[in-house]
């Protein structure tokens, strides 16, 4: 029997749709009031929670082993938990991603493995939280503060981007999702790569600054700043509270 956790996309029973007419927008965002089309029904809006895994923000995980300060990658957890509560109450779709590799490392590019070894935390090697970045290990699990609820999608990805070699695009299109709220870690690596992929595919993206974090504060700041240039080259930036404040039962306005 296939362990559901190791499949590319898992889904528990269908979520409850937004029958109450919740919608979001315009959100006070930078550099423009988000979304571009004014307002989005929560039935077409998904929160993407990127790689909130022990390996990236837990003691003994991959990022900890590389010697970075996990307080930086944990900083976005409270705001993300608050956003998730709001999202679930207003009928948004919630999607979680996990970066990781098959236990036989058959989907691990040679250069990715080599580089992780160079920095002293080789993917697949044993660590305090199990084998680093391997599916099914304790370190690969999502931390309890923002754990998936029944009915929420979980996408397993082998790279930094959540679209490459996954079913995410199919999942979004099938569920008629057109707008994305991005949270997760790290801002400049997996969040940015996913936002760039989503933007090229025509999804309207809003990254929530207080729901992200990076191993280096200046990379975090630069990554958010980049989004706001050229009229919002990849979308826009706001905070969780801005989304909550812009959500109501107004429907199309």
């Amino acid at each position: 029997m296939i362990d559901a956790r190791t499949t590319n996309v898992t889904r528990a029973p269908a979520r409850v749709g937004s029958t109450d007419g919740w919608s979001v927008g315009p959100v006070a965002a930078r550099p423009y009031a988000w979304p571009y089309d004014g307002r989005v029904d929560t039935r077409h809006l998904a929160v993407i929670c990127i790689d909130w895994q022990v390996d990236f923000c837990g003691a003994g995980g991959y990022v900890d082993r590389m010697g970075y300060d996990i307080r930086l990658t944990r900083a976005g957890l409270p705001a993300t938990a608050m956003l998730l509560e709001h999202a679930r109450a207003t009928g948004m779709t919630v999607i979680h991603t996990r970066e990781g590799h098959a236990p036989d490392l058959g989907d691990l590019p040679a250069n990715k493995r080599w580089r992780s070894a160079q920095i002293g935390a080789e993917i697949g090697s044993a660590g305090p939280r199990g084998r680093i970045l391997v599916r099914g290990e304790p370190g690969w699990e999502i931390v309890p503060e923002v754990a998936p609820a029944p009915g929420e999608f979980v996408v397993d990805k082998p790279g930094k981007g959540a679209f490459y070699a996954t079913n995410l695009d199919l999942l979004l299109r099938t569920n008629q999702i057109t707008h994305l709220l991005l949270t997760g870690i790290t801002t400049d690596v997996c969040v940015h790569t996913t936002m760039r992929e989503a933007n090229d595919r025509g999804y309207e993206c809003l990254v929530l600054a207080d729901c992200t974090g990076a191993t280096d504060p200046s990379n975090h700041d630069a990554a958010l700043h980049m989004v706001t240039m050229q009229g919002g080259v990849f979308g826009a930036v706001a905070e969780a509270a801005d989304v909550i404040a812009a959500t109501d039962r107004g429907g199309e306005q």
Partner: protein
Amino acid sequence: MTEIIVEAAPSPFRFDPASTALVLIDMQRDFVEPGGFGESLGNDVSILQAVVPPLQAVLADARERGLTVIHTREGHRPDLSDCPPAKLMRGAPSMRIGDPGPKGRILVRGEYGHDIIDDLAPLPGEVVIDKPGKGSFYATGLDDLLQASGITSLIVTGVTTEVCVHTTVREANDRGYECLVLSDCVGSYFPEFQKAALAMISAQGGIFGWVAPSPDYLSALTADEPTLSA
């Protein structure tokens, strides 16, 4: 197999020219030349112009050595059917994709401004990839082309560093390609982003790849040449 070793951040970059392609990203008139779309948005294009001379030297060397050369262009079909509404509507009114610009319709395929600058014009036989997004892999044949050609390493150049160059390097890295970004052959309208974007590539043990200036890349290739004895 010939192994070339370039001094790079965060560690030496090793590649075989036979399985390596030089990629020139979006060196289009609209982004690089005075009077183009980029300048009309208020950007200082002289910063991007500084990329051209070192990139010309790298391109000439690649052609001489027979490296695979790939050019990309960002743009859309004249009917804009491949332009997502979220991209189209984000621009300021009258400055949107498809609107008339100083060098033809903005970011539309076949227009003068959409083509590559004369100094780096593709030669017959060189690949030109037309892409609708920032990344060179999404909705293009680039990955198939690289696989079919046996290419495993990319020397990455072009504009702009934090937008199309970075998106392409991220896509390539997830697909297992090894990328060396030539720091003086990539350019940004914003100096602080140039710095941050290059730092991000080599951070965490080279999370997206390697970075080196083009003289170091060229001298590594030259050092490998057999010297003629008298």
